[in-house]
């Protein structure tokens, strides 16, 4: 009935390897940049002036309540129509950064709010500025507590990178699409692609867990459970 033929797929493994490499690049860029956006936005949300807090909240709500695909279209098709030149890969990284930024803002915020008031008061009593309190007292325990939620979100943004194939970025899904249109082994291609994503998700999960252990375990901070919808954007 099925009669799977993986031969033609592996004959194009060069495209798959390149696609995998692009997936990694997209994900890594988005994770680094998106985390920075999220952390800054969470800090603003926590101690910025009121209009800025409101702006951050609006950003978070808009991104979390619209599909990533539409965000990507607005950036890739919309920006050039307004005169900003942008290529598909840049558009993909920008959209992923903005998307992860919004989700991680909420996660970082929960972490920041979980740090007890008395800790902050103790810091202020030592004549530290608000920024110093944030940097030296709040930041590390806040991130440590939400690390597991953050890691889930990182993996989700990696999976979301597949949507960049809609604007013809030749990452893993885009490469798979090209190969299936050339070889007609559509089912086989997507089995291979699915397994690669699955393996990448598991490896990332373990790698980030190990990183978390290394960064935070000696500080004896227990992670907190979040009820945020940490699902695919």
């Amino acid at each position, binding site marked *: 009935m099925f009669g799977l033929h993986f031969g033609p797929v592996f004959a194009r493994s060069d495209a798959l390897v390149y696609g995998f490499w692009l997936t990694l690049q997209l994900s890594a860029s988005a994770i680094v940049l998106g985390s920075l956006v999220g952390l800054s936005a969470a800090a603003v949300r926590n101690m910025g002036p009121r209009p800025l807090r409101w702006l951050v909240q609006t950003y978070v709500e808009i991104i979390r*309540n*619209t*599909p990533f695909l*539409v965000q990507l*279209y607005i950036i890739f098709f919309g920006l050039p*129509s307004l005169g900003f030149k942008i290529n598909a890969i840049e558009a993909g990284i920008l959209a992923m950064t903005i998307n992860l930024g919004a989700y991680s803002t909420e996660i970082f915020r929960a972490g920041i709010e979980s740090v007890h008031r008395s800790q902050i008061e103790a810091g202020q009593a030592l004549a530290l500025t608000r920024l110093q309190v944030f940097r030296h007292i709040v930041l590390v325990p806040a991130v440590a507590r939400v690390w597991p939620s953050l890691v889930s979100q990182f*993996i989700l943004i990696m999976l979301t990178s597949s949507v960049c194939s809609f604007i013809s970025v030749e990452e893993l899904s885009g490469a798979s699409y090209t190969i299936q249109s050339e070889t007609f082994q559509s089912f086989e291609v*997507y089995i291979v*692609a699915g397994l690669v994503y699955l393996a990448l998700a598991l490896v990332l999960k373990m790698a980030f867990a190990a990183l978390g252990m290394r960064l935070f375990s000696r500080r004896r901070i227990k992670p907190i459970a979040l009820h945020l919808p940490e699902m695919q954007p």
Partner: protein
Amino acid sequence: MIRNFGPSEILFLIESARWTLLLTFLAAAFGACGGLAVALARVAQTRAIRNFATGYIAVVQGIPVLILLFLSYYGLSRAGFNLPPIVAASISLAIYASGYLGDIWQGAIQSVPVQQWEASASLALTRPQQYRTVILPQAVRIALPPTVGFLVQLVKNTSIVSIVSVVELARAGQLVNNATFQPFPVFITVAAIYFVICFPLSLASRSLEMKFNAYRGG
């Protein structure tokens, strides 16, 4: 012939949101059945069943929705089922939903304190009776806010199936853009329609969460 982005185009977009809602509904309904089975399997007394459910969740959560879509689309046609795209799309979204709902509900079932199991067991209830009258009613309260939150993700992910020519909201946006070449207003409008669907669900999820926390605190 370039058309202008006017009221009739906006109407077309709004009408196409019906398909988004239908896809969401089908995926949620079938995904809920699958999700309940996965959740119960995850807390089953037989280890093999538990392991299978754990593996299922890991696989569904480790593969992009887009790939799940293609796998069911091409997999079903290879198996000899020539289904209309909307059916294949619903199936893949239901699989996606079952993986996440199963995970959420398993967590909810396990957050019912073990003493509730003991107390109901000591009253000579059978396991199905324990589930039906003691465990699930409490698990539902816990699971409701994240379940509603997940519906938001489901609505948004229906946009992915635009790639197999189901003319739902995202695909309609693409079509209108191809006809008008006004991507910015077109996709902002599309985003706004999604927002109108999703934001109330997000708010509902949050208020349920708050109500539940108040209940637990009191």
